[in-house]
């Protein structure tokens, strides 16, 4: 800073910064990287350090209820995790809940988006109504479905189904995973709908009109022009949706507590139980590591796919 001799009236800091790029390639590199550093360091400290700690914990026997019990146990925690039927069940539930929720929400979202893409009387009002489930607290959504919709005696679902002979069916305890998926689908459909709607509205109307003039049917236009255009939006929705739904905790905590037994527990809920109710730090940590490895394998495949289209699009732009 002291090298900035006789700066005019400008602040020396600014003068130094703007001069930097001209000095050397290395300085330019750092000037470019500098704005990135705070965010990068923050993310490293808040996400990667704890993860490293998780790896360390996973090699130790450590129960918070027995503070003296700490010891290095090698891979024993991992052996325990892989032979834990409840863990494997929770893993299966996680895959089932995430996949079914994302797929169904996306299909419903596409349907709603197609309906809302037309211009019609009150479109703004209907869209406003339809996005509401995405904005409502997920904890509240779970309570709403459990105590108002799926309630056996007074619930709306059984009331609507009563002509079909459904009387006091207890959805949440009889079909816990299904009930959770219904609540999650309801919550995530507007998110998918918004993405697909954005895709539909960014369509090139010239191409659509040209196809119409050429005598293409509505179905042909949808399959050959609209769907390919929507692909990136759908992929993004599936990716973001999966990332969030895989971590679902609140819905299960509020609706089923993972029950009955551990029938509807997913991985976040099961690890929570082991950590905060069982206080078994070592095993919880091992589960966390296993979950991460599993997620990375799935995510890498998915991300590669997304990034390919993502980066191609960017190259096409420049």
């Amino acid at each position, binding site marked *: 800073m002291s090298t900035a001799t006789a700066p005019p009236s400008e602040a020396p800091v*600014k003068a130094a910064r*703007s001069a930097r790029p001209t000095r050397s390639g290395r300085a330019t590199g750092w000037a*470019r*990287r500098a*704005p*990135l550093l705070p*965010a*990068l360091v923050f*993310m490293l400290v*808040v*996400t990667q350090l704890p993860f490293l*700690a*998780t790896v360390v*914990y996973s090699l130790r026997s450590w129960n918070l209820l027995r503070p003296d019990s700490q010891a290095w146990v090698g891979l024993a925690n991992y052996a325990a995790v892989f032979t834990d039927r409840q863990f494997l069940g929770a893993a299966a539930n996680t895959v089932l809940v995430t996949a079914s929720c994302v797929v169904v929400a996306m299909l419903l979202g596409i349907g*709603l988006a197609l*309906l809302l893409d*037309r*211009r*019609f*009387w*009150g*479109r*703004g*009002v*209907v869209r*406003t109504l*339809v*996005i*509401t*489930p995405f*904005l409502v*607290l997920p*904890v509240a959504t779970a*309570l709403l479905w459990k*105590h*108002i*919709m799926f309630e056996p*005696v*007074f619930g*709306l679902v059984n*009331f609507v189904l009563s002509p079909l002979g459904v009387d006091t069916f207890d959805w949440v305890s009889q079909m816990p995973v299904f009930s959770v998926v219904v609540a999650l689908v309801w919550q995530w459909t507007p998110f998918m709908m918004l993405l697909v709607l954005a*895709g539909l*509205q*960014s369509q090139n109307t010239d191409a659509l009109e040209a196809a119409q003039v050429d005598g293409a049917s509505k179905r042909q236009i949808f399959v050959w022009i609209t769907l390919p255009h929507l692909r*990136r939006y759908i*992929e*993004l929705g599936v990716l973001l949706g999966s990332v969030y739904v895989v971590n679902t905790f*609140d819905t299960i905590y509020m609706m089923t507590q993972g029950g009955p037994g551990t029938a509807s527990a997913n*991985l976040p809920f099961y690890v929570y139980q082991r950590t905060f109710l069982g206080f078994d*730090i070592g095993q919880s*940590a091992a589960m*966390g590591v296993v*979950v*991460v490895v599993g*997620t*990375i394998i799935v*995510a890498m495949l998915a*991300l590669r796919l997304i*990034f390919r289209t993502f980066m191609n*699009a960017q190259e096409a732009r420049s």
Partner: protein
Amino acid sequence: MTAPAPGRTADTVSATTRTPRIRRGATTRAGGTVLTALTWVIGLLFVSPVLWLVLTAFKEENQAATDPPTLFFQPTLDRFATVLGADFLPYLGNSAIATLASTLLVLVLGLPAAYALSVAPVKRTQDVLFFFISTKMLPVVAVVVPIYVAAAHLSMLDNVWTLVVLYTAMNLPIAVWMLRSFFLEVPAAIVEAARMEGAGLPRVLWSVMVPIMAPGIAATALICMIFSWNEFFFAVNLTAAQAATVPVFLTGFITSEGLFVAQLSAAVVMASLPIVVIGWTAQRQLVRGLSMGAVK
């Protein structure tokens, strides 16, 4: 907003102002009316749980759980009064702090990072972006144990600022990703011109880019706010009486008061209202923000 097409601004376009593109005669118009009615029915059906919830919040407790359900009744505000009487405001305050502070922090950290990744592409941009997105893939369960232990050591349990830090980390990846695509939208010529005039990087960011990107920044902030306000896992595990947020309030509400459906509905309405209203008023930004990542 960059001057949207005139038709797009007014969503409630009356039938008379329809574009002349649709001129296929009476059958299409009748079909259009049917489709409109269908859209309304499906939309109302989809949102009916919320509508019913709001209705229930205005009921007396004995009208809330009846078979068949009660549709007509004398509305009352008593349930809302009870919720407010149950110390709702401190939770609201904590949620407001956690949401606003973390969103602000996300923007402070995310704007320069997104800028670096867009306008002046760092070598291996893709790697850095990939890193940011991949942290989003890191399941919370993989980090919660050490975070809990660390927070306990630092006496940061039950502290709202712990939530601020965690929510910032939770939202930063997606914010960087979105902001980067908004930065890509700013014409390079404008930035060049500003630099030629001798403006330094902070100046270019603050006086040139930020005003252009205001709608995009609003969209990013909105999405961060939704996710922070709604976050439950960290809130329920790392806070107790002092720093608990609104979602935690709802859990405590049931266990301490027993289950009263009307009262619960009123609590749910009040807990969700701030974000629902913000989301409604800014839905255009929401669409923009969500779709940017797909386009750019």
